[in-house]
């Protein structure tokens, strides 16, 4: 009976999702595939940004952290809110104001040169595939729990459904389905919290606050200062302007919408973390103490909801994951077509669209295969964070603010940052400084070195410049 109700709920959800995706219409031009025609309104930019960052770590992971360490991770999560707000105030409007810009690589290409664009494109595609592999693994875990399928077939189902609508609809389908999925989880998980607080928590507010205080003290006692600094750095920098966020900044209807979308997404992250952490704290008096961190939310919902409600929430968890996966597949595909292929091949709009679609399928296949190699959800995400921040952020942020950034500085910073971050995955540091901060410092030093030894682009004769570089008279 439980299996039948599960299948009915899953089928109904997939049907509604397909209806929404079909309504989004297939992309007919590359600009629609990559930027949804640059027509996104504020609510959709906001919903899609939130749906993209609320993945397994910010839902299942945060509930587990609330259970283990109370409000400690709410404090750490504030760094993520600060990051979104700073991006909204300082970077997103500058990015949106660039003309003919489809990707971060495009932005870097316009500010530096074409070589930098290709390097940024390779890093973007690699990181999107890495993040997508982590999402595929998480989707597989949840779907296995719902339908009892083998892990590999659950991964294939999640990746195949997501790839289907992303390949044809591009960013528009991704944003529309993100909004649908956001609606589902932004309503159902807080409703679950309210139901647990009102009907399942014996002792009311006093018990809740006592559990929160005990767990927070336990969390602070068991986490070293270095760990807290490392986590703050990862939350502040690790996901800053990863390709799917940059695509949404670029696809906003106006510069103002781009800025406000990030500001609201930052504020929402505080609200969301509060809800997730509170679910974890409430679970302390309901769920057995020996339950694994990643299974707290699932166990809590199983104990407090009827069978159909439990299945519905599991489906919502799959959609939490799918909404992140579709954004990563689309962003990776657009970066591949725009930053890696376009600089070398003069292609028509239709060819670019087809290359984007093929790349979506290719990245999805890599993600499904790579899901097997992902050690765990959190460690997989931390590896991607540690590489992304030093590889791209110095070149991108300084490039957007300097009047005449120098291509050698960009290339050195991206190359050295990526290399050092990858090396830190295999070599443990002798001093206890978070790898992301060390790699970021090295990337910044490489940038400064490149900037000092390179000739300013406005002094280089026009004949020797690449397409993307400016001259003095420009």
């Amino acid at each position, binding site marked *: 009976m439980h299996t039948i109700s599960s299948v009915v709920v899953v089928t109904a959800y997939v049907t509604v999702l397909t209806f929404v995706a079909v*309504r989004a219409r297939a992309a007919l031009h590359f600009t629609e595939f990559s930027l949804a025609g640059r027509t996104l309104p504020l609510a959709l930019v906001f919903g899609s940004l939130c749906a993209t960052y609320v993945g397994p770590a910010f839902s299942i992971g945060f509930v587990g952290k609330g259970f283990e360490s109370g409000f400690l991770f709410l404090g750490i999560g504030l760094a993520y809110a600060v990051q979104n707000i700073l991006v909204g105030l300082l970077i997103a409007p500058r990015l949106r104001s660039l003309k003919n810009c489809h990707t971060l690589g495009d932005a870097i290409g316009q500010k530096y040169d074409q070589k930098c664009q290709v390097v940024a494109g390779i890093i973007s595609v690699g990181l999107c595939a890495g993040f997508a592999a982590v999402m595929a693994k998480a989707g597989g875990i949840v779907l296995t729990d719902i339908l009892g399928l083998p892990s590999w077939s659950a991964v294939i189902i999640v990746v195949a459904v997501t790839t289907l609508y992303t390949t044809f609809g591009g960013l528009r389908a991704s944003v529309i389905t993100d909004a649908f999925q956001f609606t589902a989880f932004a309503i159902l998980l807080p409703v679950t919290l309210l139901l647990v607080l009102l009907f399942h928590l014996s002792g009311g507010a006093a018990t809740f606050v006592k559990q929160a205080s005990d767990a927070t003290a336990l969390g602070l006692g068991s986490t070293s200062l270095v760990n807290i600094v490392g986590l703050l750095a990862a939350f502040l920098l690790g996901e800053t302007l990863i390709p799917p966020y940059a695509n949404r900044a670029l696809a906003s209807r106006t510069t103002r919408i781009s800025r406000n979308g990030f500001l609201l997404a930052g504020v929402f992250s505080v609200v969301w973390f509060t809800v997730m952490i*509170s679910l974890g704290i409430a679970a302390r008096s309901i769920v057995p103490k020996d339950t694994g961190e990643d299974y707290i939310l699932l166990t809590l919902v199983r104990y407090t909801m009827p069978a159909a409600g439990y299945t519905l929430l599991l489906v919502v968890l799959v959609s939490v994951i799918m909404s992140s996966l579709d954004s990563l597949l689309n962003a990776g595909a657009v970066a591949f077509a725009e930053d890696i292929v376009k600089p070398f091949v003069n292609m028509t709009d239709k060819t670019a669209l087809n290359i984007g679609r093929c790349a979506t399928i290719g990245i999805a296949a890599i993600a499904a295969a790579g899901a097997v190699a992902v050690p765990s959800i959190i460690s997989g995400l931390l590896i991607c964070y540690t590489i992304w921040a030093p590889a791209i952020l110095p070149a991108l942020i300084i490039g957007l603010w300097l009047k005449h950034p120098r291509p050698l500085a960009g290339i050195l910073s991206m190359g050295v940052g990526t290399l050092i971050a990858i090396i830190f995955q295999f070599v443990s540091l002798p001093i206890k400084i978070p790898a992301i901060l060390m790699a970021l410092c090295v990337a910044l030093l490489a940038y400064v070195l490149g900037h000092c030894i390179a000739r300013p682009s406005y002094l280089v004769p026009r004949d020797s410049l690449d397409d993307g570089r400016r001259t003095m008279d420009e």
Partner: protein
Amino acid sequence: MEVIIFIIIVIAALLAIASGIWVAIALVSAISAHRDQANKENNH
């Protein structure tokens, strides 16, 4: 103090639900706008 923390958490849950409803309304508008545009293109 206990009651204040409890109220803050309930307000956070309500704000999250309100955000979901706001995006749902925008989603319905976007879908009908797309349908109108598609009908217009078909008529032309």
